[in-house]
């Protein structure tokens, strides 16, 4: 499937549809008068840019932050936060429908109030955006500029007709959605994560193209909010980078919710008839057509590298992979750094946050901290959630590290049983013959919370044996991690040790 870029958000119009709510994207703001020189000029007011600006400003640096659209970036406005907000509401409806499983009565009538769910989401988004407001950042000593920033010279950036001189610069311009070049798709219209949260009515029938984290999360959310959802993924499994067992559990969960799961399937053409969209699907030699009201595309994101005049300052980039950086997040111009979606393979807010702090130390204080030294977990917030940290088994094998996995199914965990949340597992991968934790995958309703213990252990170089000594309050679902550690300990009890123990206890 070929793909194309959407134009940057500020250049794009939200489709003219009565079911979409266009929110104001700009605010009344007067750009400040530039300082003589900035320690750090940051292009992009998303999570990475804001974190870098805050960290540098707190340390006394003179910082300029340039944003062309909305402060807060994708995560706050059109990504993690709004999706989590509606996942919460949709999960509640799912629990209502499954009330019997929890020993409760199913309400006689369950009416989904889509508008209320979206209103709650927008309220949460507005509340969190206050933290990242231009006024708030200004009080920290950060000069906030709105406009299209680009490099104007060796040590200058131009924004809104003003030149900002910098000692160091940071490119954090983010990324925008890719969409597939399916004949008829553009004409029929479609949603991406940038406007799906502006919907005012739940589409009765929704096709989701792309089985990555975003596609899976929103497919499940909209299904639980009442859409008849079909999800199409060209690979034979969802979340192609995740473990097979995790992806299979997710497929089963989505199907159980009532989603029409089409793996190994391509959407090949779209045509609009009236208000309906007919989408032709192909899986090997099997052809079918689904009729939907809306199409949501989530096949990936592409870095915003255009119109920055990067060539003029010697910053190498490609349109596919973004700005080229080394392990210190320096671009090919050693005075210019980059982070976030514009250059990183993993496009996670918390990755941007951690890397932004690293850049401040490396750019302003001669730090030599490496990106590869960071321990970065991630999570797909479906139900169950799928969280991972560290190496996958295949990665360990490619590095010729012998690996052994300690697995605890959630159906063995007392609290998971009590909660009726038994689907999933904890898998902790260790270097065989040692307790060194290489990585872990957790599939559980609260996997995103559970992975933190393992992330801390990896980051602190604690082995699995140490996790066996951690005392958990009883009962918790995170006890699965201790159970995996206990399994490790039992394997250390060799026959010789057992014999010695037996001899010792023979008094």
């Amino acid at each position, binding site marked *: 499937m070929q793909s194309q870029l959407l134009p940057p958000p500020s250049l794009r119009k939200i489709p003219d549809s009565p079911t979409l709510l266009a929110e104001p994207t700009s605010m009344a703001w007067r750009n400040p008068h530039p300082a003589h020189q900035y320690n750090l000029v940051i292009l992009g007011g998303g999570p990475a840019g804001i974190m870098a600006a805050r960290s540098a400003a707190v340390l006394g640096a003179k910082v300029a932050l340039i944003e062309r659209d909305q402060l807060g970036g994708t995560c706050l406005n059109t990504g993690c936060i709004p999706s989590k907000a509606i996942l919460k509401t949709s999960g509640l409806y799912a629990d209502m429908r*499954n009330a*019997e*499983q929890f020993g409760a009565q199913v309400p006689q009538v369950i009416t989904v109030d889509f508008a209320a769910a979206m209103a709650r989401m927008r309220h949460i988004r507005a509340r969190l955006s206050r933290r990242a407001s231009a006024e708030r950042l200004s009080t920290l000593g950060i000069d906030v500029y709105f406009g299209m920033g680009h490099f104007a010279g060796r040590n200058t950036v131009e924004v809104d007709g003003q030149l900002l001189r910098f000692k160091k610069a940071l490119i954090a311009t983010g990324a925008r959605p890719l969409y597939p070049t399916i004949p008829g798709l553009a004409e029929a219209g479609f949603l991406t994560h940038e406007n799906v949260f502006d919907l005012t009515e739940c589409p009765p029938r929704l096709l989701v193209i792309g089985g990555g984290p975003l596609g899976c999360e929103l497919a499940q959310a909209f299904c639980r909010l009442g859409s008849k959802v079909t999800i199409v993924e*060209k*690979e*034979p499994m969802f979340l192609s980078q995740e*473990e*097979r*067992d995790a992806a*299979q*559990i997710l497929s*089963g969960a989505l199907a*159980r919710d009532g989603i029409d799961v089409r793996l*190994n399937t391509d959407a090949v053409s779209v045509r609009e008839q009236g208000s309906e969209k007919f989408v032709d699907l*192909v899986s*090997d*030699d099997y052809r079918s057509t689904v009729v939907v009201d809306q199409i949501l595309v989530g096949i990936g994101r592409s870095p915003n590298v255009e119109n920055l005049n990067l060539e003029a300052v010697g910053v190498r980039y490609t349109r596919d992979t973004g700005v080229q950086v080394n392990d210190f997040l320096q671009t090919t111009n050693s005075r210019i750094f980059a982070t976030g979606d514009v250059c990183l393979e993993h496009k996670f807010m918390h990755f941007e946050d951690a890397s932004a702090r690293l850049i401040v130390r490396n750019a302003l204080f001669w730090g030599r901290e490496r990106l590869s030294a960071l321990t970065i977990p991630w999570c797909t917030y479906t139900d169950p959630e799928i969280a991972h940290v560290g190496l996958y*088994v*295949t990665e360990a*094998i*490619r590095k010729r590290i*012998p*690996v*052994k*996995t*300690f*697995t605890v*199914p959630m*159906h*063995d965990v007392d609290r998971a049983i009590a909660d009726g949340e*038994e689907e999933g*597992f904890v*898998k902790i991968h260790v270097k*065989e013959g040692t307790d060194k934790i290489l990585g872990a995958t957790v599939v559980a309703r609260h996997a995103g919370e559970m992975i933190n213990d393992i992330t801390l252990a990896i980051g602190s170089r604690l082995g699995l044996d140490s996790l066996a000594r951690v005392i958990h309050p009883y009962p918790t679902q995170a006890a699965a991690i201790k159970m995996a550690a206990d*399994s*490790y300990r*039992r*394997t250390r009890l060799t026959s010789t040790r057992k014999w010695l123990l037996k001899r010792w206890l023979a008094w």
Partner: protein
Amino acid sequence: MLSDEDLLDRLERAAFEYFLHETNPENGLVADTNRTGAPASIAVVGFALSTYPIAVERGWITRDEAAARIAVTLRFFWNSPQGEQADATGYKGFYYHFLDLQTGKRTWTSELSLMDTALLLAGVLTASVYFNGATQTEIEIRELADALYRRIDWLWAQDDKSSVSQGWKPESGFLHYGWEGYNEAILLYVLALASPTHPLPATSYPAWTSTYQWENLYGLDVLYAGPLFVHQFSHAWIDFRGIRDRFMREKRSDYFENSRRATYLQREYARRNPHDFKGYGENCWGFTAGDGPCASTARVDGKYHQCFGYTARGVPYGPDDGTIAPWAALASLPFEPEIALAAARHCLTHYPEILKEGRLPSGFNPTLPGNNSHGWISEGHFGLDQGIIVLMIENYRSQLVWKLMRDCPYIKRGLKRAGFRGGWL
């Protein structure tokens, strides 16, 4: 009560009789199931061909009769159309998964299946090793077997990738599905590596094993795969006791021991019975690819219960809808006879109605309301289930198939190219 030997003899013979009854004598093709209108499955033909030496040794049919049946089958496969046309029998030496039982042409728009061709070929080679006599028919069997093997273009199936595809269709090319994680494909790789004409490169095998996961699960160290058949199919022909590839040498185990542990894993799952399904217990287990009640949601005891039709059930992550495959437990007989026999006896004692014509069904589900007081029972019989029952009972009783295949030079060569050492190699 029947002795173990008598019980096994009855089950084995009844299973073998499936192939006597469900084979088209004109072309040797065997029905996938004995349900009306079922097509032939090439994998089931592979099992059928492997059962004839057993039947001869057990005195169930004569050597001449067996040889004649096999010769008919091999002649069909050699002479049937090979090509890119959509209704051919095969292409590049491989065969379509499902064929019309009468005409032998591709049916159900099925895929040109590598694994099912390997299972067919395993049967072809088993027959060629056993029928080593000087009669015209037995000579013909050996010549046709060798010719069929040499015709398969394994390299083409690699499709310029590190490991092989699962199949190909004339309408859409190679399937996107590859072999990821441990599964039944060892037999496929061994046969493909040993080809005298189009062998896979030796690097293809570690490319596959690099996707394995070695897990500690329920206290057992095991090369994980959920469905039990994965741990059985290659073992029907290859005696993995004591021979090890690089992966198993590193783990200080072997594939036979691994299947033994996988069998215990199944029993342990049934003991824990996380979904509270009826019937599950220490002696009632068997979760694998097989028939199921339906592909919908049923309401049982006030709860919604998701069911599946024919699917690969597995432990511990499922899918699990309460369906037990009693033949799967029995097919673990060589790995751990005590618990496999106990499971078979338990099912036959507590659910006697599952036995029809002396054969075990593909599955039964005591949790669901079905066509009798003990729940749902799969209709008729499936050839794969009956085939694995015959081979594994016989491997337990006399090791006949293992012994035959130890003498097959292709199996030895393939194992060695895959890096297996030790034991009988």
